[in-house]
C-alpha cells in the first residue's frame, strides 16, 4: 500500500501554486517533504489534507481517495499540524487537545468518556501531560508544538501531515519531535512532514519528496534522492553527502 498524490493542482488568483504534483511513497513510513521557501510545501499539505479551497486532484491512501471522502470521515483518518498555530482565546492545553475529538463527536451527543482517555494518551505520548492545565500563552514554543501534535494525535490519524514541526525548536526538542514521529510510523501511522533541515530529514526519514516552484523534482528513498546534484539544482548550493560514523545515515555538509 502506498500514499499517492495524483494530478494535484492549485492556482490562486491565476498564479500556479501547485502544478501537476504526483508522488507515490510507502505507507507506515516517515516521509519528508523538502524544498526551498515558497516551493508550495504548505499548500501541498493543505491540498492533501483536503483543507485547501480550489485545489484539484486525488490523494490515494489505504486504498481510498481521501479527497472524495466526506470531510468528517476524512478528519478521522487524516490530521494536519499547521505551522505556528495560535489562538486569540485563553485555551488550556487539555481543551486544545480535546479539539482533536471533534470529528468523532456530534452536536447532540458530546463528550464520550473514551474521549478523555484518548486525550490523556495523546498528552502522555507527546510529553504535554505535565502542563495539561496551563493556558497556551504560558508555554514555550516547543511546548506549544507538542500540544498541537497532541491535538492531531487525539484524532487518532492514520495519516499525519505536519508543516515545519521543528520550526523554532531547539536541537533537543527537534530530535525529540522526530523521534516521536519515527515511533508513530513504527506503530503504523504514515507521516508526511515538511522539513527545512535536510540533515534532520536525512536522520529520521525513509522517503523524500522534493518540490520546487510548485512541482515535484524528485521522489524516492532517502539515499536515492538526497544527492549533491539534486541539492544543487533545487537549492543552488554545493553539498557533500557523507555517512554518519555511528548510524550510517547520510550527513550533508553545505557550502556556497
Amino acid at each position: 500500500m502506498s500514499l499517492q498524490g495524483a494530478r494535484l493542482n492549485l492556482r490562486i488568483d491565476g498564479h500556479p501554486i501547485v502544478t501537476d504534483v504526483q508522488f507515490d511513497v510507502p505507507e507506515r513510513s516517515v516521509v519528508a517533504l523538502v524544498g526551498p521557501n515558497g516551493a508550495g510545501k504548505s499548500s501541498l499539505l493543505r491540498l492533501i489534507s483536503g483543507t485547501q479551497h480550489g485545489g484539484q486532484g486525488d490523494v490515494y491512501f489505504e486504498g481510498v481517495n481521501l479527497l472524495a471522502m466526506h470531510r468528517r470521515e476524512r478528519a478521522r483518518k487524516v490530521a494536519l499540524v499547521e505551522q505556528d498555530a495560535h489562538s486569540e482565546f485563553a485555551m488550556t492545553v487539555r481543551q486544545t487537545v480535546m479539539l482533536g475529538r471533534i470529528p468523532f463527536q456530534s452536536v447532540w451527543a458530546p463528550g464520550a468518556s473514551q474521549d478523555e482517555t484518548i486525550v490523556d494518551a495523546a498528552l502522555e505520548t507527546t510529553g504535554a501531560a505535565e502542563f495539561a492545565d496551563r493556558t497556551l500563552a504560558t508555554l514555550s514554543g516547543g511546548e506549544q508544538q507538542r500540544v498541537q501534535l497532541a491535538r492531531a494525535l487525539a484524532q487518532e490519524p492514520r495519516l499525519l501531515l505536519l508543516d515545519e514541526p521543528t520550526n523554532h525548536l531547539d536541537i533537543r526538542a527537534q530530535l525529540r519531535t522526530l523521534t516521536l514521529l519515527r515511533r508513530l510510523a513504527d506503530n503504523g501511522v504514515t507521516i508526511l512532514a515538511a522539513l527545512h533541515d535536510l540533515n534532520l530529514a536525512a536522520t529520521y526519514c525513509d522517503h523524500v519528496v522534493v518540490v520546487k516552484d510548485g512541482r515535484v523534482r524528485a521522489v524516492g528513498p532517502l539515499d536515492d534522492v538526497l544527492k549533491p546534484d539534486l541539492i544543487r539544482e533545487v537549492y543552488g548550493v554545493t553539498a557533500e553527502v557523507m555517512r554518519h560514523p555511528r548510524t550510517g545515515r547520510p550527513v550533508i555538509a553545505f557550502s556556497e
Partner: protein
Amino acid sequence: MNGQRKALAWGFALAVLLALSVTITVTIGPAGLGVLDVWRSIVDHLGMGSSDLTRIEDGIVWQLRLPRVLTAAAVGAGLAVSGAIMQALTRNPLADPYLLGLSSGASFGAVLVLILGMDVLLPLAAFVGAMAALIATMLLARSLGIITPTRTILAGLAVSSLAGALTSLVIFWSATGDSYREILSWLLGSLAGANWAAVAISGGTIIAIGVPIIIGGRVLDAFAFGDTSAAALGINVSATRWLLLGGAALLTGAMVSVSGAIGFVGLVLPNAMRLLVGVQHRALLPLSALVGAVFMVWVDTAARTLFSPRELPVGIITVLVGAPIFALLLWRNRSAA
C-alpha cells in the same frame, strides 16, 4: 468533566438569577405599586386569580413594565450570543455586532423607514440593514484577498462608518423637532417603546434563531486555531461561517429593531464568561445568553428609574457599567494576555 460541572452550576445560578431579576424588576418603578399588587395583576392576566388594581395601575404593569422587562432580557441574550459567535468566527475577542457593521446597518435601515413614516417595516428594515452590512463587510474583506480576521475587521469598520454617516445624513436632512429626539434616543439605544409586539419580535427571534445557533454553535470550538484547522477537523467552514454569521445578523437585526443600537453587551459579556467558565462554546453560548439577559434587565431598570421621570438612554449605561468591568477582567487576566 470538572469544567462541565462548573458550567452547569453557573447555568443553574444564572437561570435562577434571571427569574429573580424579572420578578423583582417589574415591581420597581415610580407608580408606587407594591410587589404583591404587581404580581396579582400579572397572575390575573394569566387567567389565574384576580387583582384589585385600577385600570391605569394594571396598564402600567401589563402594558408597560412586563413587556419592557421581557424585551430587555431577550435583547441582552441576543446581543451577547451574537457577540460570542462573531468573536469566535473572526478569531478576535474584540469583535461584536458593531465591529462588523451589523448594528450600524440595522440602525440605518430602521432610521430610514422611521423617516419615511413606515414604522411597521421597522423590524424588516433593521434585519435587511444588518444583512446588507454583513454582506458588504464580507465581500469587501474577500476582495482584499484571503479572508483574515484583520481584513474582516477593517472591512467592518469601513461599512459601519459608512452606515453611520448615512444615518446621520438622513436624520440631518429630514428630521424635525420631536422625531429628531425620538430617533436620537433610539440610536443611543432605548427600551422605552417596548410593548408586546417587541416581546414577540425579540423573544420569537431568540427561540427561532438564538436557540438553534446556541446548540449548533458548539462547532465554533473547531475555529480556535483558524479556518484551515477547522477544516482539518471535518468542519464545512464556509457553510458554518455563513450560517452562524447569518444567524447572528438575524439576531442583531431583530434586537436593534426593538431597542436601537445598544453597545458593549456583545463585547463585554462573552469575554467575561470566557474568563469565568472557559472558551468552550457548549457552555459559553448559553451562559452568555443568560448573563446578557440578567445584565440588560437590570441596566434597563436603572435607565428608567435612576433619573425618573427622565429616561437615560440605556446604551449610555451599558458602556458606563461595561467598560470598567471589562478593564477589571483584563487586569485580573493579565498573566494570560
